[in-house]
């Protein structure tokens, strides 16, 4: 991990308007995690979800293949219309393949939700600013791509509405969670992509 308390402090100093902490806001938005199948992006969000679920089998997290989480969630959502699928990813991971939002909007599967934890930084590599610290608004990009159900959550009062959007409704939901650039939970999860694939598939019951 190429992070230090100094870089975190620096990042905090340049982003004073963000008040939510991911360690509280992500669990609050997800609620009962058993209600979802998860595909998580690499770095921070994979640790958010591993800590919340104790690295459970209904989560498939990346540790590479950056830019693939949203599309992997789409493939899973199309395959399992009987289950709700959540893509949990970061601003940097999503920025690497914004076209995925357009592809998803065109199909608009009702059982897919995308939760982007936007800390405005590349936390994994030392808290360099991402484009979202410099004026890029991922909710507007999602809406402009054609996703009709979008929201930005940036204060405690927004959490309940964001949580509802992620688990209800008749089209793909996109929630942008803006958080302070603080550390995700420490968690040593299984990093073997093949073992996690088998684990996921064995634990997933066949459609009813």
């Amino acid at each position: 991990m190429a992070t230090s308390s100094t870089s975190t402090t620096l990042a905090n100093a340049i982003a004073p308007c963000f008040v939510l902490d991911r360690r509280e806001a992500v669990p609050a938005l997800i609620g009962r995690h058993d209600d979802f199948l998860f595909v998580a992006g690499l770095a921070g969000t994979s640790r958010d979800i591993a800590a919340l679920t104790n690295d459970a089998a209904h989560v498939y997290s990346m540790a590479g293949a950056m830019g693939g989480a949203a599309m992997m969630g789409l493939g899973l959502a199309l395959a399992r219309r009987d289950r709700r699928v959540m893509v949990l990813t970061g601003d940097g991971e999503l920025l690497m393949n914004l076209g995925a939002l357009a592809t998803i909007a065109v199909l608009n599967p009702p059982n897919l939700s995308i939760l982007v934890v936007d800390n405005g930084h590349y936390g994994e590599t030392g808290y360099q600013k991402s484009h979202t610290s410099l004026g890029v608004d991922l909710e507007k990009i999602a809406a402009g791509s054609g996703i009709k159900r979008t929201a930005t959550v940036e204060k405690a009062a927004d959490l309940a509405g964001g949580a509802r959007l992620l688990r209800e409704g008749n089209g793909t939901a996109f929630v942008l969670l803006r958080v302070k650039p603080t550390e995700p939970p420490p968690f040593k999860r299984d990093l073997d992509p093949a073992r996690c694939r088998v684990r996921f598939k064995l634990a997933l019951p066949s459609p009813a």
Partner: protein
Amino acid sequence: MNVETKADSEAARWQDQVYDLLRRYNVTQIAYVPDAGHRILIDRSLADPQVHSVALTTEEEGVALLAGADLGGARGVLLLQSSGVGNCINMLSLTSGGRFPLLALVSMRGDFGEGNPWQYPMGRATQPVLEAMGVICLRADDPDEALRAVGAALTMVYQAGHAVAVLFTQKLLGAKKF
């Protein structure tokens, strides 16, 4: 874009047979960036209410999509041009590392009779790049070979769990005229 120089009906015959074969193997997610070489497969998928026809903005989206499909127990195919193979390279880390099955049908440019110099770099690199990322390549130069290669690939992918690309060469598809 490939423009068929052979009779459309001849192209239709083998590509329709490829589509029927994919469906017999219960392929239900068909992902592609629009391409003349795959026109028949794409049009068949759009007209088929039993499949998800997924138009992509870039081919690497399809690699991730099909890995997600596999997690959910569904089968898919990625239709792409040789230039699109270059857009997939790092995403194939997911396929290779996760041992996800992957079936890709590649319409070749930059090979037999190519008139556009821009197509050569990626056309020439297609097979080495795929093989470097752990994808087995089967080349098909005529309709019979194409059908046999797709049949073989379906077994290699969905029975043996490998990643396989069938390369439809310009001997098969014809070269675009400039």
